[in-house]
């Protein structure tokens, strides 16, 4: 209860500090909009321009060939005709966006109005925008083929029927043909003859990823500024010591745990609010810039879980700074440089896949890396909760480490 009183008081003080509110909530958004707007194409450009699609034609019939020709003629992707094994290999290594398999009885199925399925296997780390674009192209061509196939099949059926009808049935036969054709359009839309099924093969962790820089900027700057907010905890404790109120709190019937919890809770709450505001407004801003919004709604539990561990880690880092720093300059100056440096190395300013090209495994030594990786895996690569378990575990480990340093070095007397 007393810890809550301290936390409420700190939040009251924070709300009146406009400069700090600007730094916590507005500045990150400014960075996101400027950087996303300016560099949003980087990373996505190689694939969006001409994404490569492997095509495995097991049909070798007329309609299979038509499909391949139309895909090649579309101009929005590069078709690579290859074998099934080669396609699997290329896809699993993320060397192209995906592979499309045309089944063996494709032509026969289309001609006999039997449903056929095209399988689109996408690379684990493929750019979602590129995948989406390719799928749209395939579905569009498949819809045309589907309609064409259904109409031809229908006409054939009518032709066969016409031979057995007397001459006076001619007029009726024309109306019947038109009605039949209309029905085929409706059927083709409702139950397309050719369906496209998408699958994602098992991700190969060792392969490098290519993600849209604009999209990764939102979680990147969020992580950076959430960790920068650790300074508010350290500053708040330093200010309490400077004005003497900390002495007053130590003299009150209040345990050290309550005191530290009271100083930690406001930063934790602020961090969560910060993540929510930056994600929502950042995503909204990206939509305005013409980029795809981050899919928070698709992985709400994962996003919230990463946000909680990140907020906790930043708060613990604040306690560690308060324990180690002895002067205002060490909190405001040195820790700012340190936190920006950690953000840079940890992939908040430059995407992780680019950093790893020349820093190797060095980024792994900072918590920013694991937070960025978790958000990227969830929101940009859309890999699901199972992929962020390790990231969360390591991030929580950092959290415990920072808290232990803070408790070890914290000076209640000074």
């Amino acid at each position, binding site marked *: 209860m007393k810890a809550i009183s301290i936390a409420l008081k700190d939040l009251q003080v924070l709300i009146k500090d406009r400069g700090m509110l600007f730094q916590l909530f507005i500045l990150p958004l400014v960075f996101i909009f400027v950087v996303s707007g300016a560099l949003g194409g980087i990373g996505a450009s190689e694939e969006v321009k001409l994404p490569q699609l492997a095509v495995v034609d097991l049909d070798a019939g007329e309609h299979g060939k038509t499909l391949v020709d139309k895909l090649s003629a579309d101009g929005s992707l590069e078709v690579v005709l290859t074998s099934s094994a080669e396609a699997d290999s290329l896809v699993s290594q993320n060397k192209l966006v995906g592979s499309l398999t045309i089944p063996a009885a494709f032509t026969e199925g289309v001609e006999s109005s039997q449903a056929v399925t095209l399988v689109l296997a996408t690379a684990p780390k493929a750019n979602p925008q590129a995948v989406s674009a390719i799928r749209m192209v395939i579905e569009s061509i498949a819809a045309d083929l589907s309609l064409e196939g259904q109409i031809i099949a229908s006409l054939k059926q009518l032709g066969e029927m016409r031979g057995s009808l007397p001459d006076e049935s001619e007029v009726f036969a024309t109306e019947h043909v038109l009605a039949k054709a209309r029905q085929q359009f409706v059927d083709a839309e409702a139950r397309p003859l050719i369906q496209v099924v998408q699958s994602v093969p098992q991700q190969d962790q060792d392969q490098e990823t290519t993600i849209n820089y604009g999209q990764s900027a939102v979680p990147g700057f969020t992580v950076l500024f959430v960790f920068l907010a650790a300074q508010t905890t350290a500053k708040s404790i330093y200010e309490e010591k400077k004005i003497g109120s900390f002495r007053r709190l130590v003299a009150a019937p209040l345990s050290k745990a309550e005191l530290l919890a009271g100083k930690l809770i406001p930063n934790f709450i602020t961090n969560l609010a910060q993540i929510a505001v930056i994600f929502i407004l950042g995503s909204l801003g990206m939509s305005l810039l013409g980029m795809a919004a981050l899919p928070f709604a698709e992985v709400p539990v994962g996003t919230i879980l990463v946000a909680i561990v990140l907020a906790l880690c930043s708060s613990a880092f604040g306690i560690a700074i308060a324990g180690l720093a002895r002067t205002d300059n060490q909190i405001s100056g040195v820790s700012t440089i340190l936190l920006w440096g950690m953000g840079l190395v940890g992939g908040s300013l430059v995407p992780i896949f680019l950093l790893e090209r020349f820093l190797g495994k060095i980024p792994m030594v900072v918590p920013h890396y694991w937070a960025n990786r978790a958000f990227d895996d969830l929101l940009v690569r859309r890999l699901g909760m199972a992929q962020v378990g390790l990231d969360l575990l390591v991030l929580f480990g950092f959290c415990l480490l920072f808290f232990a340093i803070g408790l070890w070095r914290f000076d209640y*007397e000074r």
Partner: protein
Amino acid sequence: MPPILEVENLVKKYGDFEAVKGISFSVEEGEVFGLLGPNGAGKTQTISMLTGVIPPTSGTARIAGHDIRKEADQVKKINGLVPQDLALYPTLSARANINFFGRIYGLHGRELKERVDDVLRIVSLTDRADQVVDKFSGGMKRRVNIAAGLVHQPRLLFLDEPTVGVDPQSRNHIFESVQRLNRERGMSVVYTSHYMEEVETLCNRAAIIDGGRIIAMDTIKNLIGMLGDGGVVYVGVNRIDEAILGELSTLPAVKDATLVPVPASPPGPDGKETAAETKLAGTTPVVKIVARHNQQALVNVLGCLNQQDIAVTSLEIMQPNLESVFLHLTGKKLRE
């Protein structure tokens, strides 16, 4: 009735440095006890140990029968601390500040509201309660600082230099508040200051502390009585040398004669340092005479100076008080 505070041989060391060197004293229930000493004497360190802010290196103390080391939680509920710093949140209102410290002591609801209103009345800030502390004058901030230490109605209140940097009006206000709390509510007070007139005005007894040690402790009357009718006489002269100073020191009724370093000058009648302009204006040497008997010493000194054809440019006699007691005991002024 047992003392509310008993201190036994309290020591605080930082490495080789001994800030408090075995202090012992006691404070009776309902007493206002003064800790008088210059800056760095160990007053704040002593209070910090007694209020649980820092642990003593050795020694112990009991507050209302509770050991400060073993029963810290009990002790903290009995104590109230008004630190030397303005330990307030400047962007919050006076009421919000006091409310917060009340909640920290476990107060809430109607009781908290009544206590907050009560202490605001005590420090005469009811009409300014909802204004932001940052907009207050130094004196008003000091009063809020005191109110925050009173809100939980402590039995023993530690006031650590509560009048530093305040105007005379606010100082009087603080004096009145302390006296009223002691008189009407029986609150025991430990009052630290380096202003001897504050301790003389407020306290029943006082300990004079210097260099981490108590060098004298008694009632104010007895402490001043240590000097008999002696005191300090400041004599401004047109010239002086070591030989004449030596001669003055040997005169009957004179304990010591020293040259006051320029630009220092004798304190004013109220014991305060004279203004900087006054000090600079007097460029002639000033001799400080510590007298066993003021009147006799003055006659002897003036006679000696007259014989040496030395002109007297100014003359000030300090009546015996705690300042002169401190000077007598340590050879230095309280604010040196």
